[in-house]
């Protein structure tokens, strides 16, 4: 019987937590849709302050895996998970854990920007704060500013914090969603094809952002864009038809992959 995880550890830039326990890891994780499995027997470890990219052709299970990492997968009717997902060594699927608490510590940015249309830009950023510990008014403004700066959006919206987010461009809206995700200070950030619906300029902004984010968070990104994976990630995991085929440092994966399937996908022979 594992105990529930403790409250967030203090200052994450302490060297005190050596690389023995990865920030996020899976252990024989299988995600089911009814009686079929979307992704099977995945054992993966993500170290703190790294970017891990999940790549593979459409339908290989990378998004299913990502959604299993913050317990979003089980929201689909008939979906369930076997195996473990370990946040700082504690299984988030333990019966004693409330999935809502898990999602406050593992944030997610989706493919399409989803600003809440009835809230202003500032209210959107603060939306995640409402469910955590109470923050005072002045603190709240500080948190909003910090989150928007981290998302590289502050300069563009500081004069219109109370306007509707629907007037922002797609790229700006996506950065707003990133700000909304980082404001409550999660430990892990999951990105599900975050640049898929953006123009190249917006996509470039998000990629720069990912590099910035890894300094404070642990990032897992699903992308179908191989060049993007090569640019932004430290570790790459290749999936095919629901199985983890190979995982390793990005530089090695893209220059000297060990498995034939990996090489075939990376060189564009299929996918």
């Amino acid at each position, binding site marked *: 019987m594992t105990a529930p995880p403790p409250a967030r550890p203090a200052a994450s830039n302490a060297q005190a937590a050596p690389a023995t326990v990865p920030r996020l890891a899976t252990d024989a994780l299988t995600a089911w849709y009814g009686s079929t499995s979307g992704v099977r027997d995945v054992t993966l470890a993500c170290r703190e302050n790294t970017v891990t990219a999940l790549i593979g052709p459409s339908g290989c299970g990378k998004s299913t895996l990502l959604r299993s990492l913050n317990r979003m997968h089980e929201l689909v009717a008939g979906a369930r998970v076997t195996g473990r997902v370990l946040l700082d060594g504690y299984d988030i699927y333990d019966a004693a854990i409330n999935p809502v*608490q898990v999602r406050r510590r593992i944030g997610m940015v989706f493919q399409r920007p989803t600003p809440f249309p009835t809230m202003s830009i500032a209210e959107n950023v603060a939306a995640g704060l409402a469910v955590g510990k109470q923050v005072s008014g002045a603190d709240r403004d500080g948190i909003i500013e910090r989150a928007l700066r981290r998302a590289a959006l502050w300069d563009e919206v500081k004069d219109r914090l109370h306007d509707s987010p629907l007037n922002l461009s797609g790229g700006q809206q996506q950065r707003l969603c990133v700000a909304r995700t980082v404001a409550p200070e999660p430990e892990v950030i999951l990105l599900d094809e975050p640049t898929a619906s953006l123009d190249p300029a917006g996509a470039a902004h998000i990629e720069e952002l990912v590099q910035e984010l890894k300094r404070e968070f642990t990032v897992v990104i699903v992308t179908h864009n191989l060049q993007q994976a090569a640019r932004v990630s430290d570790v790459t995991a290749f999936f095919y038809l629901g199985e983890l085929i190979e995982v390793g440092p990005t530089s090695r994966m893209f220059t000297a992959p060990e498995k034939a399937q990996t090489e075939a996908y990376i060189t564009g022979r299929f996918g």
Partner: protein
Amino acid sequence: MRGRLFRRMFGSAMTGLTYAAAVLAILPLAVIFAMLLVKGAGSINWDFFVKSAVPFGEPGGGFAHAIVGTLIMVSLACAFGLPIGVGTGVFLAEFGGGRLGFTVRFVADVLNGVPSIVISIFAWTWLVKPTGHFSALAGGAALAMILVPIVARTTEEMVRLVPNSLREAALALGYQRWRATLQVVVRTALSGIVTGCLVAIARVAGETAPLLFTALGNEFFSTRLNGPMAALPLQVWRYALGPYDEWHREAWAGALVLITLVLALSLIARAVVRAKRQHA
């Protein structure tokens, strides 16, 4: 050459037919409104709104008791019916995938088609007969029974329109299900829900049959919820069937006020939608 000309003419004729159909659809409303204006506007005066009925055949008097009665009973219907209707609509949209949802939806659709006189008799059986007297409360309840299925279905449609991605984004932030539903989904659908409610209220304000066996109508000004109460459609009906010219004139005026009320509510509903679209 001839082929092209024929094609163009045929196209124009078809387009013309659709325009004609649209005009025919609008025509009844325009004619009704014009007729009511002509026949009723003359009897609209200050007295109409502040005085209640006077003895048979005497001039003067007004519909104050009926207007106030309608306002009270429609408010009662809203108080009983809107929370249940909106709540049911949210349930159907968010949790209505299974057996229970299917049943509730079916029942709501059937209720939407039940004749209002049947609702009236039902309310009489359960609210008037046991208590021994007609009442505005029973009238409000009968109106609420008509309001709930309409509001439930329109609310469901509006909440369904909210994209699932918003729901997911809220849940991914660590919102509990109830909070995600209320603070994000329902809030986003709110102007649509309000529009649906306004249209349903406009419909219910003009219903006569549900009030026949419940509120009965009242010749005197009364705000007693436990006793019979006048209502605009009831009063129009009574006066229209009466023998006095004075009554007929007042009935026309009452009908004009009623249709103006319905029109005003519908216009407000449209304005709400337009305001939301400009804001967005």
